[in-house]
């Protein structure tokens, strides 16, 4: 198995005592698989991702990649941070170039420059390459962050709500773009994606990991998807499996929000 998470627990020391973010997390991911982690805010989705990224050290349990325990971050894993995390004093081009220059070995400067150009073009930012992050929109910043993660050609992509800040149209384009990139690479890149968007999770994933609510969150259920690839948004929406999974995810995520239907109509004046 490519990525193995065994009995993972991550807790933080706080002034009020120990805070357990996630516990008893077990997950195996094959090479080339796309796995989404979905759940309510504060359910430890990002915590699991940060443990895989090597940004957090497990309190208990292990995270291994190809059997080797994760000791820290590395260029084999490309991270798209939730808040873009671009360096504000570097241009769009330089933000990507510095990452490529640092992470990619055995390539000449010219080759690295070509890589950067290719990915800037891929996310449609050629016209903005010399701008500083403060001069471009949130969506563009996120595209820079995605280009930066792709450009270092990692084995695994870790994306923390990568399309969260994008408008619906751009979001759709970027999701397609992501699948296209993954396809072009013979579907060999493993992608782990944290999201709270059910449709996004279904459209992109092979499996969807549903978390329980935090604190001390754990995996509630793992949904397997068998939707054919390459996927087409319009086509899959009408497939019975899509509807089934969507219903299932909705009921898993919404079952806490049981509303007495009568509550909806309280205070509404009854028309004569």
């Amino acid at each position: 198995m490519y990525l193995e998470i065994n009995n993972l627990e991550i807790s933080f020391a706080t002034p009020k005592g120990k805070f357990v973010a996630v516990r008893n997390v077990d997950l195996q991911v094959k090479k080339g698989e796309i796995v989404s982690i979905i759940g309510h805010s504060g359910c430890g989705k990002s915590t699991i991702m940060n443990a895989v990224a090597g940004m957090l050290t497990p309190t208990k349990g292990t995270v291994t990649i190809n059997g080797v325990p994760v000791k820290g971050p590395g260029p084999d894993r490309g991270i798209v941070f939730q808040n873009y995390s671009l360096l504000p004093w570097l241009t769009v081009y330089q933000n990507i170039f510095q990452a490529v220059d640092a992470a990619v070995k055995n390539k000449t400067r010219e080759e690295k420059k070509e890589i950067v150009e290719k990915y800037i073009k891929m996310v449609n930012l050629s016209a903005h390459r010399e701008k500083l992050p403060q001069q471009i929109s949130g969506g563009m910043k996120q595209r820079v962050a995605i280009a930066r993660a792709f450009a270092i050609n990692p084995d695994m992509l870790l994306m923390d709500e990568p399309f969260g800040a994008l408008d619906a149209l751009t979001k759709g384009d970027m999701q397609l773009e992501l699948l296209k990139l993954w396809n072009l690479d013979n579907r060999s890149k493993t992608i782990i994606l944290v999201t709270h968007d059910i449709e996004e999770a279904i459209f992109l994933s092979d499996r969807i990991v549903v978390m329980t609510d935090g604190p001390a969150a754990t995996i509630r259920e793992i949904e397997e998807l068998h939707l054919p690839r390459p996927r087409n948004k319009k086509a899959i929406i009408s497939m019975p499996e899509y509807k089934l999974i969507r219903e299932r995810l909705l009921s898993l995520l919404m079952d806490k929000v049981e509303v007495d239907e009568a509550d909806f109509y309280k205070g509404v004046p009854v028309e004569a």
Partner: protein
Amino acid sequence: MNAQTNSAAIELTSSAALSDRISLKPLLNKLSGALQASAYTLGGFGILLVLWYLLSKLTAGALPGPVATLTVLWEMLKDPFYDYGPNDKGIALQLISSLGKVFIGFALGSVVAIPIGILMGANSFCNKLFYPIVQILKPVSPLAWFPIGLAVFQNAGTATIFIIFITSLWSTLINTAFGVGSIPKDHKNVAKAFGFSTWRYITKILIPYSLPHIITGLRLSISVAWLVIVAGEMLSGGLGIGFFVWDSWNALSLEKVIAAILIIGIVGLLLDRFFAVLEKKFTYAS
């Protein structure tokens, strides 16, 4: 056909006029703002001049009035580069001497303070080690170091540079340490995630992020250095604006003393403005 082109032309000119008006407005606003600000400045100086005049009348001329002082100032500025021997030189030569000492001392101080500040900000061990020393030495008047400078260098001019060096250390050091210590986790995570080398981290993250803080430190340091040079030169003698003030007092020319005060103030203001502009240039919105 003709009418069509005509109306199109009219449309064009009217839209051009509109955009002209739009682009003029902020310029006008800026201009009126600048006028207002200078009106306040002039008003303030007007009040000062009146008070000064009244004070000099009240003291029956013991304090020279504005007219006498400005006349002397004009005399000083008319021939700033004269040189009649070691104790009688033009105001520009005095200023150049003082500025030279300030810049040498300030440059040496900055070269020492910035790396130590970076170390203190980046490493809590260094911070714990050096911070108490900084806290004890910072409040000491730099003039107290003058005898030590004299003893070590056996030369009043070098000793003056030495006290400017000491003066320039503290604010730069503290601000640099603060800037480096406050680098956001997000930026550090980028460095970690993409495997930045130490050199790349220093040049692409640490320095750009802390530069505005470092410049603030330099700005504070040069302000204090300019304060200290005047006092320092009163002690050291020789050449310089501080010595000039003391020498004018000995020659009982308060007009020259006040004229020198004006010049010192303006030079100090210019130094401060210079670093304020730098500060702004290197500040980035994230």
